[in-house]
């Protein structure tokens, strides 16, 4: 192990949801990184990445918003750590599209009225934990093993697709989530819907789409024998957790399936105080499950 590995330090782009409906993802990320002694410093004045809506309406705007965020990120040292799967995807897509298209590069530079500064490496938390920090060190930092907890790792769309962009793992058969949570002693289940779409931003305009798609995901996790689902995206979380009761009412099936952000489970295992993990913010309470497994 090189000495440099002991002083990991990152700039941090939380994204809009982590300051609002997904604040438990932000709190548990900060708690986990503190426990692992990894530096995490928020980029000042960051703005919305545009997410799916911006590229659905206006690709040039989408690229410009992300390029502006990459420019702002240079104020803070360290590779850019991103928690939200959608922000991660948009920032990486922007780096790729602009690297290969000179015309778009000129247009975005004009929009920003500044030379482009796009080179900061963008890393999802999973990559930081699995590669930079390392699974052995992660396993060594575990104070409360999650043994006996059966976790369905849900990737959704944007952590691995489209190919060549996120560079996180295989785009059809990834294992990085299983490897990371597996380091805590948790058992990961094999299930069919770990990469199917949850209905995404249709939650606002056509919630019926979400009830169908997310309902199939919950049913698949249940069939796989999972106690809970682990996610890395606030939109997936909202669809699976906030809409779970409606899904149950519409389908007549009971799930009662807690949906955790990856950092909530990892921070729990690393011994972070449960008061900092935001379990009270989850619509499907995980309290009885965690008590049953001796984790609370």
């Amino acid at each position: 192990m090189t000495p440099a590995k002991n002083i990991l330090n990152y700039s941090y782009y939380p994204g809009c949801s982590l300051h609002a409906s997904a604040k438990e993802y932000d709190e548990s990320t900060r708690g986990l990184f503190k426990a692992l002694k990894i530096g995490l410093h928020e980029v000042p004045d960051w703005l919305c990445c545009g997410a799916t809506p911006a590229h659905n309406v206006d690709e040039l705007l989408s690229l410009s918003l992300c390029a502006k965020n990459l420019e702002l990120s240079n104020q803070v040292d360290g590779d850019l750590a991103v928690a939200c799967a959608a922000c991660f995807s948009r920032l990486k897509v922007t780096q790729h599209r602009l690297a290969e298209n000179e015309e778009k590069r000129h247009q975005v530079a004009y929009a920003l009225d500044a030379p482009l500064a796009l080179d900061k490496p963008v890393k999802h938390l999973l990559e930081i934990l699995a590669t930079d920090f390392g699974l052995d060190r992660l396993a060594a930092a575990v104070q409360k093993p999650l043994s006996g907890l059966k976790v369905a790792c849900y990737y959704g769309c944007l952590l691995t697709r489209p190919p060549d962009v996120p560079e996180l793992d295989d785009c059809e058969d990834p294992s990085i989530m299983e490897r990371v949570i597996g380091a805590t002693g948790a058992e990961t289940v094999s299930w069919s819907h770990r990469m199917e779409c949850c209905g995404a931003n249709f939650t606002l305009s056509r919630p019926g789409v979400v009830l169908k798609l997310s309902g199939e995901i919950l049913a698949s996790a249940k069939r796989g024998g999972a106690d809970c689902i682990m996610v890395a995206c606030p939109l997936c979380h909202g669809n699976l957790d906030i809409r779970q009761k409606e899904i149950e009412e519409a389908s007549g099936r009971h799930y009662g399936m807690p949906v955790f952000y990856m950092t909530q489970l990892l921070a729990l295992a690393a011994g972070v105080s449960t008061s900092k993990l935001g379990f009270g913010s989850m619509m499907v309470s995980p309290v009885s499950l965690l008590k049953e497994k001796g984790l609370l």
Partner: protein
Amino acid sequence: MKHSKMTLSAETMNLGFVKKVEQLSGSSVRRCFQCGKCSAGCPMRSFMEHPPNRIVRLLQLGQFERVLAGRSIWYCASCETCTTRCPNKVDLAAIMDALRKLSWDAQGPSKESLVQLANRLFIDNIRTYGRQYEMRLAAVFNLKSGKLLKDFMLGPSLFTKGKLKVFHKKNRNIGEIERIFSRIEELRRKGEAT
């Protein structure tokens, strides 16, 4: 959906439209050889009249009116499964973005394009605040779409769980953000961007 007879001739095939889609999306439409993998993996297939591979075939035949009619292009979730699995590197997710833009620019909103209304409000929020104001986005969408009570019952429990942030401050650099929006508009006015 009822299929009307399609007659192909120079008059009924709008091939200029295909070029426009290819230019906007940065993807070839013509490379598709109809293997159907995109439709086999599409999670939104059951909501669409035309499955994704048929959208591409209709584009190849210059049948843009059939492509833009109805709901198919408005029910793509941008999950990127089609783009990932295409053996010919047709970026169908980008083609769907291009089709939505062309449809909105040419025809404006339709009863099927609710998602684009939500998308546009999302973008308005960025221009006004810098970061997304989730509660306002939901409230304004309900107001503008006439679905005033949608998710009304979720409100109190989201509030109790601390998931509804009621107050929202504008970014300090909101002037720089506005400048990005206005300079993109300027590029378009000058015809230097599509």
